[in-house]
């Protein structure tokens, strides 16, 4: 079959890399055992066929840097236990994903070439939805779209809180400390109870679920004794096979709004205003200040406004802002609740935002055909969609990785974050495409480093630019909360207080829980003893 010109070239390597622990003969034997354990059709080894679907197509490195040698897709905890037994006996590194849509941070691809992917997407049970108490219990493969459709069909009055890409999973996203845009946007905070399979095959229920016949496993988070859920997030200490997630009851009223601001420097004052409003929960959801290009991208592409190389000059950006009636910064928030409460809260918010000269206000009905406004309105009430992928149309052949540091919520910190990233991005020829979110007491900046993956030079520049940013930010005392596969060791290295005491603790836990070192080696810079 002819390869379409738009498709990134196939892996040219004559022989695929295998895990270091396996000879080709052992690889074949292990694969045969896996096929017997879970069925032929759910073990993938064809690196010119099905296995290619596990590439990270948005990476700044070539495909080969993260190509697995096999993938296995079990359907149940029992099948996972059978796979673990084989993996332990052959010392196979198993990279766990759920829906595997972790694009911008690695997609379904493993940390190193040759690893096997343990793909849990076929585990799609919606185990429980509790309308009265407002929660669901789901398996790894349940996507936001699926849970949303399910609730809609049965007329539920519960909202979900999706990340911007609706195809991700409740479970995979919360394990990554992911976030959404309703008042339930801090996903790990809304998690209640987990089931985890350890490397030796032991199944553990956490929190109240540890009590046999528990009546509150999805109602009270902390159980009794140490609270362990966090240990299984962004880690490689176990395989999570079930999570409880709290769902927000539909409020009596919902009023989304957008405030646009004309100048780049306005970010300082926006942040000063938003910080206390968020802290006091007058803004109850992700308070999101979206940069010009991010806001423009669902409506426009770069070449409509600028055909030159390098960052788009201010003159062209101003023209675009004017045409699209958006700002250099665009603040999205929403009011939730009974009408009188929304009316009162809005008075406070409006007065605060009006203090910035040139602020313009938009409400429901003001931008009926603007896809940027429309997807924000959906996200802030928990309706999953994919519109944000329009950002990658900005340069036409888009891939991207995300740089996601956190700082205190002050005007000064916001400007420092913004200018550090903008200047570094511009130095490497990229536009600043970012947004700021106030989680609660901290300011998250998501910088989407969007590049053309078919352009070798651009891809290399993107990789270098990212590496520089990690150091730039560490010097300011700002850390990233999450990162792409190929920067996990670098970022772990910035968490180095007291001679890296925290990562030494992680490594001791790793050794205790997974002595053979089979689970996701290298996740978050945590390696088995044999490799660290």
């Amino acid at each position, binding site marked *: *079959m002819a390869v379409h010109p738009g498709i990134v070239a196939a892996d040219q390597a004559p022989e695929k890399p295998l895990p270091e622990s396996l000879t080709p003969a052992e690889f074949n034997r292990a694969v045969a055992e896996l096929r017997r354990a879970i069925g032929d*059709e759910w073990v993938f080894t064809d690196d010119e066929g099905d296995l290619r679907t596990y590439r990270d197509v948005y990476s700044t490195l070539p495909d080969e840097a993260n190509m697995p040698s096999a*993938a296995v897709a079990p359907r149940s905890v029992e099948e996972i236990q059978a796979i673990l037994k084989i993996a332990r006996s052959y010392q196979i590194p198993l990279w766990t994903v759920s*829906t595997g849509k972790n694009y911008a941070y690695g997609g379904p691809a493993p940390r190193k070439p040759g690893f096997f992917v343990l793909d849990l997407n076929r585990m*799609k049970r*919606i185990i429980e939805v509790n309308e009265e108490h407002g929660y669901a219990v789901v398996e790894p493969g349940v996507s936001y779209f699926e849970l949303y459709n*399910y609730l809609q069909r049965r007329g539920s009055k519960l909202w979900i809180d999706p990340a911007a890409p609706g195809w991700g999973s409740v479970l995979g996203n919360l394990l990554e400390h992911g976030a959404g845009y309703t008042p339930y946007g801090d996903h790990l905070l809304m998690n209640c109870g987990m089931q985890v399979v350890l490397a030796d095959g032991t199944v553990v229920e956490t929190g109240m679920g540890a009590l046999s016949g528990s009546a509150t496993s999805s109602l009270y988070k902390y159980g009794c004794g140490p609270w362990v859920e966090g240990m299984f997030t962004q880690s490689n200490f176990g395989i999570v096979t079930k999570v409880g997630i709290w769902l927000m009851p539909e409020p009596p009223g919902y009023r989304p709004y957008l405030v646009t601001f004309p100048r780049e420097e306005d970010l300082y004052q926006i942040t000063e205003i938003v910080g206390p409003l968020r802290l006091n929960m007058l803004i109850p959801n992700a308070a999101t200040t979206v940069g010009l290009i991010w806001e423009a991208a669902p409506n426009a592409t770069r070449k409509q406004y600028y055909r030159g190389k390098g960052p788009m000059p201010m003159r062209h950006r101003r023209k675009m802002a004017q045409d699209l009636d958006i700002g250099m910064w665009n603040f999205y928030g929403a009011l939730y609740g009974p009408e009188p409460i929304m009316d009162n809260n809005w008075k406070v918010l409006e007065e605060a935002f009006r203090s910035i000269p040139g602020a313009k206000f938009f409400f429901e009905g003001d931008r009926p055909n603007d896809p940027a406004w*429309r997807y924000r309105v959906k996200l802030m009430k928990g309706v999953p969609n994919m*519109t944000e992928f329009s950002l990658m149309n900005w340069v036409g052949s888009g891939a991207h990785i995300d740089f996601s540091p956190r700082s205190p919520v002050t005007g000064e910190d916001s400007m420092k974050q913004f200018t550090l990233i903008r200047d570094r991005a511009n130095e490497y020829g990229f536009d600043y495409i970012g947004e700021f979110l106030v989680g609660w007491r901290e300011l998250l900046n998501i910088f989407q480093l969007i590049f053309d993956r078919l352009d070798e030079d651009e891809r290399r520049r993107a990789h270098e630019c990212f590496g520089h940013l990690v150091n730039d930010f560490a010097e300011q005392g700002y850390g990233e909360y999450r990162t792409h596969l190929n920067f996990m060791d670098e970022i772990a290295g910035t968490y180095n207080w007291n001679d890296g005491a925290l990562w030494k603790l992680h490594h001791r836990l790793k050794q205790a829980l997974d002595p053979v070192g089979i689970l996701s080696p290298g996740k978050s810079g945590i390696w088995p003893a044999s490799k660290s």
Partner: protein
Amino acid sequence: MLLLAGCGNDDTTGTGEQADGHADTQVTYLDGKALFELYCIACHGAGPGHPGTMRLEERMSADQAPLLDRDNLPPDYVKLVVREGFKLMPPFRPSEIDDAQLDLLTDYITGDNH
């Protein structure tokens, strides 16, 4: 047709929903339309806000940009793109859309039945 199968097995006849409001359902998609609506429409639907359609509008006439409006898509090409991805569209794994489902999906997209 979208069926909710009983938990943990391939029995696609029951809904698995229990009267007390507890769910325990395995969602299984058995026809092309349901598959298209779950996996493709968010990017390939008609109108603004769909990144696939937005991009395809750059290379073809607006009335041909939504996938379901295309009259010249060879089935093998659809299958290739689904498994290979295409620039910002990442590939779909067989654990998401298996080969039998891909046949149903392709028939739906390239047929007249929508």
